[in-house]
Structures are given as structure tokens and as C-alpha cells.
């Protein structure tokens, strides 16, 4: 990596103060991004690719990405779900050119090679030549030129894919708490309400940190604290699972205590007792889960977040475009059995989330604020110590433990040493 000056200060601190430190180069240097495509997204991980509800019918397909690798998710005639690289086996053209669609088979436009919905090559124009001339060689074996397929598993309608034969089965990879909370959200058939996309000019791992960070939520997001949707003082917790790689952050607005919280947030920008809404219907919600949890942010390693904020439900998929740019794809949903009023509630509350969300918009800014401040700081480090700086679950919200969990997993997946350098 690029030449850098020694940084004795940082290392000195390391020995004396508790806390985890991440060198900023992992966010800014191209080398890490390239390695992530190989070792993270093509490695021993499960990446989220779709909701089954997006491809209900036979022939339905969706084009998406794992990291920045284009893949296709299909529903075959037998109802099975398949994931394959979106790259023709002939000369590499993208086969599916639309974001979504339905088609009995997949045809490449360049020379019309055709594949079935499981990725098998079923047609090659002029394979045997024309008028006895030309064509493919005798030795050509169609069966070896399918689209390259990935391992697929689904959990309650969430579709995950992996390049790895060794990675543990999905549920084991996710861990019991993660599985439990996915089951909690996807407890019955869902209905997709639409997408929102934002293109953020920073490294995707800054968003991975952000979504594992209960500490920022009521300090950056005034709306959260002021209207009690989330406060660090609420009853709640930050759990890690799958060996620390996943994070489940939850809290209960029923535990708000405005008097106490005024104290807790004394002199803080983000708690504004005088701020009231002219149209409070925005926050009229409905209790829809048996448990008291009103906010749940689950960050599943490496590329997806499942959220419940009040009555908004969504998955957020991370697509990495470059070391300094990623796309965040939101899929908002409700349940098939939502009544009209419930759907109205979800849609009105959707003002809180997404790129224009009264709460969520700030996270896009937070990512860019960091990315552009650390461009030249290869060996400088962040300092993650709130809650003790260990990859631990906590029964409270005043911690950054889950962030450390992400970084421990990251070094493992990427084969990095303690200093985040590539192990030789």
C-alpha cells in the first residue's frame, strides 16, 4: 500500500487505553475493495440477493449484485429459486438487461445463446453450422457452458446466495438470534410496497458500522430522540450473533420517561422538547408485534439490514460500486393481510425512512462526512470504545460493541492481521 509516515502516537495509545482502532486505509484504498470482491463477496459468506416476494411466479427474474458482481435471481418452473452470474458463457455479455422481468428462459442478445431458468445452456444458434459449413466444434459440450450458478438458501422468504461450498448452512451462519428475529419479521406472507435507492459517496463499511451503532442513533437523529422513537435511554439492547458478525439492535419506546430523558439529553442538540408537529398523524402507529419491541435494526453480515422502525418494515441491500461509492437499495414491505388502514400507516411512516427519511437521511451524510475526512489518513485510526470496545452483546444501548464484532469478522474473512494488513 502507499507510503505512510509512522504513527507512534496511535500505537502508544493502543497499549494503554481500551478500545478498538481501525486504520482509515480500509475505507479508502482500492486494494481492500478489490480483495473484498474476492474474499468477502466470493468467499465464505452468504449475501442477501432478493425477497421471494419479488419473484413469485415461475419465470420471474431479478437482476442484482453481490458486491459489484452482477447476478440473476430466478424462479424456475418447479418453484425453486436459483442464483447465477449475469454473464454469458460465450463471450461474457450481460444476459439479463432489465432490473426485473418474466421470461421462460434467459437469452443473451449478442448471439442469442439461450439458458433455462436454472442456468443451463439450452440453445446455441448455428451450433451445427449452416449449409454444412462452420458451427461449433464437435468437442463442444453444451452442458459445460451454463451460467455459473451459486449456492442458494432461503429463510422465511429471504433469499441468500454464496460462492462458497465450505461456508456453513445459512441458519448456522446466521445464528439463533438472527434467525429468530428474521422469523419474527417474516412471520407471514409479505407484500412489497416499493423501492428506494440512494447512491452514497463513501465506503460501504462505514454504513456497516452505522447500522451496528446504537450510540449515534439518538445523537445524530433528532427525530428519534425528540419524538421518542429511539433513545439511548430506552430499554433495549445491542446483540451480536454468528460469532459477532451480525448485529441486532432493538428498543422499546414504551420505556420512554420524558422527565428522565430531558436530563439524559441535557444541552444536546438532538433532544428538542419544544419541537412539535403541525400534523402529528405522521406518528400515529399501530402495535403489531406481541413483544414490546418498537424498533429493530438487524445488520446481517455482509450486505443486508432488516429493519422495523415503528410500523415501517424494510430490507436494505448494500451494493458496492467502488471503494468510495455504494448503493443502498431499500425494499419496503408490509404483510399480505394488511388492511387498507395499516398500509396507509406504513406509507405515511415511510416519510421517516429512506433517502428522504426524516430519520434515515442523516446516515447518508454521516458516511460521507467520515469518508471525505479520512482520504489521506492511511495509518490514522478510528477509536471505538463506547461500552468497552469488545465484540459483546449488551442489555443497553450505550455501546459500540457490535461494530467491533463487524471488524473482527472482517479481518477474519479478509485474512488481515491485527493491524489490518493483508497476512502474507
Amino acid at each position, binding site marked *: 500500500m502507499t507510503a505512510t509516515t509512522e504513527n507512534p502516537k496511535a500505537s502508544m495509545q493502543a497499549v494503554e487505553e481500551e478500545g478498538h482502532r481501525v486504520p482509515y486505509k480500509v475505507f479508502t484504498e482500492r486494494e481492500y475493495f478489490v480483495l473484498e470482491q474476492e474474499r468477502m463477496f466470493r468467499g465464505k459468506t452468504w449475501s442477501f440477493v432478493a425477497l421471494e416476494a419479488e419473484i413469485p411466479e415461475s419465470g420471474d427474474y431479478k437482476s442484482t449484485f453481490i458486491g459489484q458482481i452482477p447476478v440473476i435471481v430466478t424462479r424456475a418452473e418447479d418453484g425453486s429459486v436459483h442464483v447465477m452470474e449475469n454473464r454469458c458463457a460465450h463471450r461474457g455479455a450481460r444476459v439479463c438487461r432489465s*432490473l426485473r422481468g418474466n421470461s421462460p428462459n434467459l437469452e443473451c442478445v449478442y448471439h442469442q445463446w439461450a439458458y433455462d431458468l436454472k442456468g443451463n445452456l439450452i440453445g446455441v444458434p448455428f451450433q451445427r453450422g449452416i449449409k454444412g459449413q462452420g458451427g461449433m466444434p464437435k468437442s463442444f459440450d453444451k452442458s459445460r457452458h451454463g451460467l455459473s450458478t451459486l449456492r442458494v438458501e432461503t429463510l422465511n422468504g429471504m433469499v441468500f446466495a454464496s460462492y462458497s461450498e465450505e461456508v456453513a448452512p445459512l441458519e448456522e451462519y446466521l445464528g439463533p438470534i438472527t434467525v429468530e428475529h428474521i422469523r419474527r419479521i417474516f412471520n407471514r406472507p409479505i407484500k*412489497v*410496497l*416499493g*423501492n*428506494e*435507492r*440512494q*447512491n*452514497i*459517496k463513501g465506503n460501504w463499511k462505514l454504513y456497516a458500522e452505522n447500522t451496528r451503532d446504537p450510540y449515534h442513533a439518538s445523537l*445524530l437523529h*433528532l*427525530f428519534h430522540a*425528540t419524538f421518542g422513537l429511539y433513545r439511548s435511554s430506552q430499554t433495549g439492547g445491542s446483540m451480536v450473533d454468528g460469532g459477532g458478525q451480525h448485529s441486532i439492535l432493538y428498543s422499546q419506546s414504551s420505556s420512554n420517561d420524558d422527565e428522565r430523558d430531558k436530563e439524559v439529553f441535557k444541552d444536546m442538540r438532538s433532544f*428538542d422538547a419544544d*419541537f412539535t*408537529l*403541525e*400534523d402529528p*398523524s*405522521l406518528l400515529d402507529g399501530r402495535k403489531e408485534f406481541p413483544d414490546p419491541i418498537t424498533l429493530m435494526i438487524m445488520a446481517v453480515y455482509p450486505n443486508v439490514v432488516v429493519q422495523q422502525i415503528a410500523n415501517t418494515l424494510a430490507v436494505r441491500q448494500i451494493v458496492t460500486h467502488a471503494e468510495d461509492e455504494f*448503493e443502498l437499495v431499500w425494499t*419496503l414491505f408490509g404483510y399480505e393481510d394488511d388492511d387498507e388502514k395499516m*398500509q396507509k400507516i406504513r*406509507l*405515511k411512516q*415511510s*416519510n421517516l425512512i*429512506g*433517502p*428522504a427519511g*426524516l430519520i434515515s*437521511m*442523516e446516515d*447518508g*451524510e*454521516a458516511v*460521507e462526512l467520515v469518508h471525505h475526512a479520512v482520504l489521506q489518513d492511511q495509518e490514522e485510526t478510528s477509536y471505538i470504545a463506547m461500552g468497552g470496545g469488545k465484540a459483546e452483546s449488551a442489555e443497553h444501548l450505550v455501546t459500540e460493541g457490535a461494530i467491533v464484532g463487524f471488524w473482527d469478522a472482517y479481518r477474519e474473512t479478509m485474512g488481515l492481521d491485527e493491524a489490518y494488513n493483508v497476512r502474507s
Partner: protein
Amino acid sequence: MQLEKLSVVERQFEVERLLSRYVECIDDDRLEEWPELFTEDATYRVVPRENADRGLPVAVMDCDSRGMLVDRVVSLRNANIYPEHFYRHLVSSVHVKGVEDGQLVVQSNYVVLQTRNDGATKVYNAGKYLDRIVVVAGELRFKEKLVIFDTYSIDTLMARPI
């Protein structure tokens, strides 16, 4: 003003004038005046084209009262964190398609250019306005403003109305 009494030319003039005032209070950062151009019960929805084309309801901003517009502005001023930026709207091809139950049905194209405090200007958001305009106390007001935007992968975030 009474719609019936206006010639098509005058009608066009009044509609474009309303759109100019709409654009001006956003671009000049006089956002507090922006809700005043809507009726009390106005709806304002900003919908990604990929949802509109599939008939899906999700909007990035989804307001069904002037109050919600006011709340957006107040949040923008006091609550939200976003990069310093200006908008610059260009609106054209304002097409008054007719009158339906007392409402002017108007379609137009727009592009919003954004400048952050680095002083660089980028195409931020482009799309079309589908407006329903009524006369309130002699003034044109938006009863409904449906914004369908092509740029469905939003650059970072969207703080200001489009």
C-alpha cells in the same frame, strides 16, 4: 380570478406564474413560503419512476396535508443533518391539459441541479410534475402535486422538496 373567465393564454400565464413562485421559494431558500402554495388538504408525493411504472405506492416524500409540508420545512431547519447545498430548478414544457371538476390538470418537466458547498453543480434529480391546481381566494394553489422522478437512485439523500 375565476378559471372559467381566463383565456387559454391567460390560464397558461397563471399556471407558469405559480410554478415560478414554487421554484423561487425553494431555490432562494424561502422554504417557509413553500407550503402556502398548496391547499390545506393538498397531497404532495415524490415517487421514484421505478415504483410508478410498476404501480407500487412507495414515495420518498408522502404528504397528505399542508401541515406535513410545514413539518418537513421545520425539520429541515431544526432537526435534519444533511450537506449544505442549493437547488436550481429548470421547468419547461408546461402543458395545461384541461380542467377536471374545477381543477386544472397540468404536466411539466423539471430538472433540479444541486450545488454543494464545494461549488460544483450536478444534475441531482429530473422528472415530471403532475399537478392539480385550483383557485383559492382568487389565487392558484396546488391541490395535488405528484412528482415522478427518473433519477430513482438518489444522490446520497434528499432533504429539500423537489
